[in-house]
């Protein structure tokens, strides 16, 4: 009787939270101006919690922490959590270990949307409800819908393969249009290029406030419904016999995950592989149940992206590396490993 159903253990949550906090403090403390980590911790808690207490930092440091580094770090947390969690959910929804927002065409859809907004001067990619972000959002959703429709139309006995192939086809198609626009409007190429590589550079809290509502709502709903992903794991037919309205559940979860991805991509540009690396790492460390994978992916995705951003900011000081380069550097080899084990 001592065997319990799979669930997130308190100790895992504490560990995951500690990892996130460590990443935050490190990322805020390190930079052109080094700041005392303990002061950073105090100042961060001061910013996060109600009430007011003295962190021991001077005014300049407080400004750096509060208006420069903390917004960027918080944005990193949100984007990382969103990408990792939507990756986990896509893997469950499509019963495919290779499902990742990037591979499902979300990224190229978002890229096309953003490019359209740039070249027609609809926005500059900055600020709340900017057209670049809205277009990226719409493009990303459209791409997932197309990939999914094509994947479902394909060979059902090899659904996993046909979905990935559909993602490749959709991504190529969107990229083709995007490249055409980019070449036709070369004056915007630098803007487009920067957006494409992804980045968390911010000027204040506007991106955070744009992403926050989407992230929080979607993440809460996905964590609440992650047991359904475990039911889906036995396949459509058995899940139906177990009383699950498979079609509706799949649409609902895929829409939530797509919203989450699109919201993140719209503010951060394209950051690949987070949705693949994090859920699989969690799976390896803590087990294969989505009741464990989804909640823990939030924490590890958040902390991981903040650390990647720290690397992107500091490796080539004073210039900045696009964060997508850092995640791809870790992600591509990881992808090969997953591919090998998935094809076992």
């Amino acid at each position: 009787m001592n065997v319990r159903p799979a669930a997130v253990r308190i100790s895992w949550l504490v560990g995951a939270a500690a990892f996130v906090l460590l990443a935050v403090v490190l990322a805020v403390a390190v930079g052109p101006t080094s700041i005392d980590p303990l002061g950073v911790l105090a100042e961060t808690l001061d910013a996060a919690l109600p009430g007011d207490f003295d962190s021991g930092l001077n005014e300049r440091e407080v400004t750096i922490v509060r208006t420069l580094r903390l917004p960027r770090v918080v944005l990193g947390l949100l984007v990382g959590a969103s990408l990792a969690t939507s990756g986990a959910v896509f893997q469950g929804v499509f019963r495919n270990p290779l499902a990742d927002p990037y591979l499902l065409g979300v990224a190229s859809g978002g890229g096309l949307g953003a490019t359209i907004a740039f070249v027609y001067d609809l926005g500059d990619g900055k600020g709340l409800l900017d057209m670049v972000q809205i277009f990226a959002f719409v493009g990303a959703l459209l791409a997932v819908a197309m990939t999914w429709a094509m994947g479902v139309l394909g060979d059902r006995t090899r659904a996993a393969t046909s979905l990935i192939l559909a993602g490749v086809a959709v991504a190529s198609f969107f990229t083709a249009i995007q490249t055409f626009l980019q070449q036709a409007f070369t004056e915007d190429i630098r803007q487009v290029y920067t957006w494409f590589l992804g980045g968390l550079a911010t000027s204040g809290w506007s991106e955070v406030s744009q992403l926050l509502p989407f992230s929080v709502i979607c993440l809460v709903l996905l964590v609440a419904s992650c047991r359904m992903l475990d039911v889906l794991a036995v396949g459509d037919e058995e899940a139906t016999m177990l009383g699950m309205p498979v079609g509706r559940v799949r649409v609902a979860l895929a829409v939530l995950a797509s919203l989450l991805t699109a919201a993140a991509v719209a503010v951060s540009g394209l950051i690949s592989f987070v949705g693949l690396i994090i859920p699989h790492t969690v799976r390896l460390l803590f087990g294969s149940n989505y009741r464990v994978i989804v909640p823990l992916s939030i924490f590890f995705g958040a902390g991981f992206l903040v650390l990647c951003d720290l690397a992107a900011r500091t490796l080539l000081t004073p210039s900045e590396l696009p964060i997508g380069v850092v995640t791809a550097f870790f992600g591509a080899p990881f992808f090969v490993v997953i591919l090998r084990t998935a094809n076992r």
Partner: protein
Amino acid sequence: MSVAASNLGVTIKDAALLSNVSLTAAPGEWVSVIGPNGAGKSTLLRVLAGVLPHVGSVTINGADVAALPPRERAKLVSWVPQSPTVPVGMSVLDFVLLGRTPHLHPLSSPKSSDVELGHQTLDMLDLTTFAGRRVDTLSGGELQRVAIGRALVQQAPVMLLDEPTSALDLGHQQDVLTLLDELRGNGERTIISTMHDLTLAGHFADRILLLSNGSVAADGPAATVLTEANISKHYRAKVLIRNVQGTVVISPRIATPSSFHLPAHFHQKSPEFDHPEDHNPDSPTHQEGPTAMSENSTEPLTENPAENKSTVAKSLVVVNTGDGKGKSSAAFGIMIRGVARDWNVGVVQFVKSGDWNVGEEKIGRQLGVDWHNEGQGFTWNSEDLEQDKAIAQQGWEVARALIEAGEHQLLILDELTYLINWGWIDPEPVYETIKNRPEHVSIVVTGRDAPEGLIEVADTVSEVVKVKHPFDKGIVAKKGIDY
């Protein structure tokens, strides 16, 4: 709960998988769906579960199954698939608890009462210690029981089981089916299962539905459905049906056991064995060679010293021995004579492979001879003497059973002498069995160095003497001549 299905039809890509199938099950009844591969058994279960588009209607207690939301349907019907999908990394307990899905709010987790039910169910299925195991590490039989556990915790009054015991060993088959039988209670659970094992189907089910080509071929109690005629017609199988203590027992009547292969080195390493039989390829002859069998059907050779006049014996024991080639060849000549007289002829080969004896075995089987290769698994390796001995004893048991059964007029026990000479089988019972055989069973024994006891019980004993053997000059066995 009662299940009623009428005029069900399923057509996929112009192929009618089911047509006009009707089925009813009273509350607490167990209906077993049988039929050959591809008859539509699994399709029927899927239709009953409401997950396959179909024409016709399925009702449970009067409610249309197809119209129910999945959740409500799952509270009424549970399903055990033939080969459950295995989610990698999921524990057995978690897998079983998936069965609670229709009883849980979509956003909530199993409660402690659910977990307790899961553990109890695992206990019932002899899976107590498996709770923490990953389902992807289970054996087929374990997985099948776990899937039954998942259906049980679903607590649906109607259970559909698709080949629930196909991967189970005999003990677990009986345990699981008895458990299901008990769980039917007093009309509390209705069971509809497909079954390949017809004896089990007939034993446990109240009614049998025989499907063939997507249609109902028969429906009724086991005794009326499980008939030799039905099984012969729809399964194209020859069976023997007996009634043992109220259970219809179906046993196969296998005409041709499959052949098997000995290692290739058998040829080279065992030249001392008489096979292949040798006739001189330069002088093909219709006569049997050195054994000089003189009996034939018109002039029965029956020298019974007790009588002066020639008489026809009911049967004879012929022993072909000696170090020359031709002992088995002569025996197979007798085999052909037996076949020509419309006898039931059986051959038991003790130290040969099906591979090796293609010639005589092929023609023997074509002629309807009951052919038993009992030499399978001989290793010719002294380390495995115990195994060889066991195989030899098993082979002799087959031969003994055939002799005592009395179903054959002629039995050829090819190379039996080696089993005796090497001490693998106890000689006395062999002589006793041959001596006390049913009076119409003739026996031909071949092999070198026929022991005294065997010669004593034989009527005809011939010795084939080697004058020349091609193997002495390094000439290997010749196909068509030697085998």
